[in-house]
């Protein structure tokens, strides 16, 4: 794992030279806790302006600590970071007004209503105009579909409503960068789709979005770039093409029981390596062979072709391949 990770890291570094302006950048960002545990180890994040950057990794891989360091909540023990070209945390009072954030779930005063909570956050923002507060918070609430429940106490909100209020707070003002940590946590499928649309819409308006999630399908649908963390290190980073480049496409053939042996022979004959056979289903790595040649060869060989599918590796496969940790927490 480690040599591959280093290689990928170098590649990402080299690639960063021509990615243009960056919304988020870190060099060697490191957090070693007092216990000696290294939560984040030499992270070199490159989030281009205008990107939707999917930040993924198993639980405990250091995503949240990274996000906290980027936002100035946690002091790095090594390295530097920049948000919108401003050095953090020195410039935090200047740059964070342009950044909306949802960090490790929403948190508000339980005894205040959703609207009052937004008003509180807006009142403490030195650069927010109090004259437009009512309008802006109304719009933010409407945008996340919370208008009807705006005057209910936060305590009475469901998990999904709390999450929505967190998003509304991030959208109180126009932002150049949104940092969304697990934004779909606790949302139902409709809500999840909502958030996806919201992210797309914001990105279309020019906002850079850094979104962390454990829902890989979610990330895959909206992201232009990905960064995969494992055990405190960035093991893969880049635009979507890095996923495809890593991907080993495979071909899956479904046939009838009598033709399994023939099909396996045809596949081997094309140089695909020995296929995995499960009943009437054969799966083999495609390599450089064009899929249409495979299907034609199978038909020519007299194989009953019941099903034929080419599978490019998806984010989940790359993720599992790189992190190898499945559902276990990393530490």
């Amino acid at each position, binding site marked *: 794992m480690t040599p591959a990770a280093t290689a990928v890291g170098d590649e990402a570094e080299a690639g960063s030279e021509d990615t243009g302006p960056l919304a988020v950048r870190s060099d060697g960002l490191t957090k070693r806790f007092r216990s000696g545990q290294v939560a984040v180890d030499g992270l070199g994040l490159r989030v281009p302006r205008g990107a939707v950057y999917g930040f993924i990794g198993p639980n405990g891989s250091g995503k949240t600590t990274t996000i906290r360091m980027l*936002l100035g909540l946690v002091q790095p023990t090594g390295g530097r970071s920049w948000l919108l070209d401003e050095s953090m945390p020195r410039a935090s009072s200047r740059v964070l007004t342009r950044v909306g954030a949802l960090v490790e779930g929403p948190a508000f005063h339980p005894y205040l209503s959703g609207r009052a909570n937004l008003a509180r956050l807006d009142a403490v923002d030195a650069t927010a105009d109090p004259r437009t507060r009512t309008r802006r918070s109304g719009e933010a609430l409407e945008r996340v579909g919370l208008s009807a429940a705006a005057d209910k106490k936060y305590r009475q909100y469901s998990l999904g409503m709390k999450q929505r209020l967190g998003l509304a707070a991030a959208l109180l003002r126009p932002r150049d960068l949104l940092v969304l940590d697990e934004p779909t946590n606790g949302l139902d499928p*409709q809500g999840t789709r909502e958030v996806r649309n919201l992210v797309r819409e914001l990105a279309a308006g020019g906002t850079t979005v850094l979104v962390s999630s454990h829902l890989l399908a979610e990330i895959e649908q909206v992201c232009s770039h990905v960064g995969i963390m494992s055990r405190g290190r960035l093991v893969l980073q880049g635009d979507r093409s890095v996923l495809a480049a890593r991907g080993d496409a495979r071909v899956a053939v479904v046939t009838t029981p009598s033709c399994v042996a023939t099909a396996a022979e045809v596949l081997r004959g094309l140089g695909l390596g020995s296929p995995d056979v499960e009943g009437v289903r054969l799966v083999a790595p495609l390599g450089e062979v064009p899929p249409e040649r495979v299907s034609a060869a199978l038909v020519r060989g007299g194989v009953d072709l019941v099903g034929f599918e080419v599978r490019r590796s998806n984010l989940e496969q790359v993720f599992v391949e790189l992190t190898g940790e499945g559902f276990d927490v990393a530490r």
Partner: protein
Amino acid sequence: MSLADETPSGTLTPQPTAGSERQSPGSRPDASLRPLEPSAGGPDERVPGAFGRLLRSELRLVLGRRRNVILLSGLAAVPLLLALVLFLTRSSQSAGEGPGFVGRVTENGLFLVVAAIFVCLPFLLPLTIAIASGDAIAGEASAGTLRYLLVVPVPRTRLLVVKALAALAFAGSAVLAIAIVGLVAGAGFFGLHDVVLLSGDTVSLGAGALRIAGVVVYVALSMTGLVAVGLFFSTLTEVPVAAMAATVITAIVSGVLDALPALHAIHPWLLTHHWLDFAELLRIQPDWRTLASGLGVQAAWIVIFSTLAWARFTSADVSS
């Protein structure tokens, strides 16, 4: 997902579209400019009066919170109860008890203010103040709202100053609540008269009221050291109750140490040692040096503990 598409959900789907339509004329041109260049004007500029808005928001939060209102009401009930008890047992009261504040109430309602403060001073008042000041940072940390305040952003020093001011305002309100209810109840039950001082001299009602006001101010200022201690503990933990308890214990331990003759040497520097010196104001010739040294000790506690609180809060990792 297809099910979701067909469900006339209403609650979620239509609104963002409506919102985006409404926003697009205003926000699009803005947004198309922004991604490339750091915005030069607009969002970076401070709107005048920022500190005032922050402070008002904090005061509203602290003084409007139901728990705190209940605490203030509890304190305000003390003079009322005291007046009631003294009024009903007027005949059988034991004269010359304690420093004599309680005994004097039936003669002059103005003394109810002093008597109520005297009753609250050992425990109730420190407890109330410890709850408010211990909650200041730890409460936000435990609710998770601290991280959102800091990324708004609110600079940490400014947040700490505002939290301290709000805790001081609460401490002041607590003393004032006792005083005002004491004054009203005292006037109602026993009437207001010329004031017989502890030294036996009599001063006019106006001069007496001024001295009582002085007592209230001195006691309120005597609480400021405790507020600083509470604020410091509040920066150490994410558990508000722990900060509150530590603050109350500080006051209690200080009282205990103050009662041990063997520790005579450190007595003048104890947090609570000068709290009862307000009685000086009820002598014909108050010893101003005593009062000044009492306030000086509070100032020392404030300087030490607010410095510690600042050092801790501005460097701590916020991981709650």
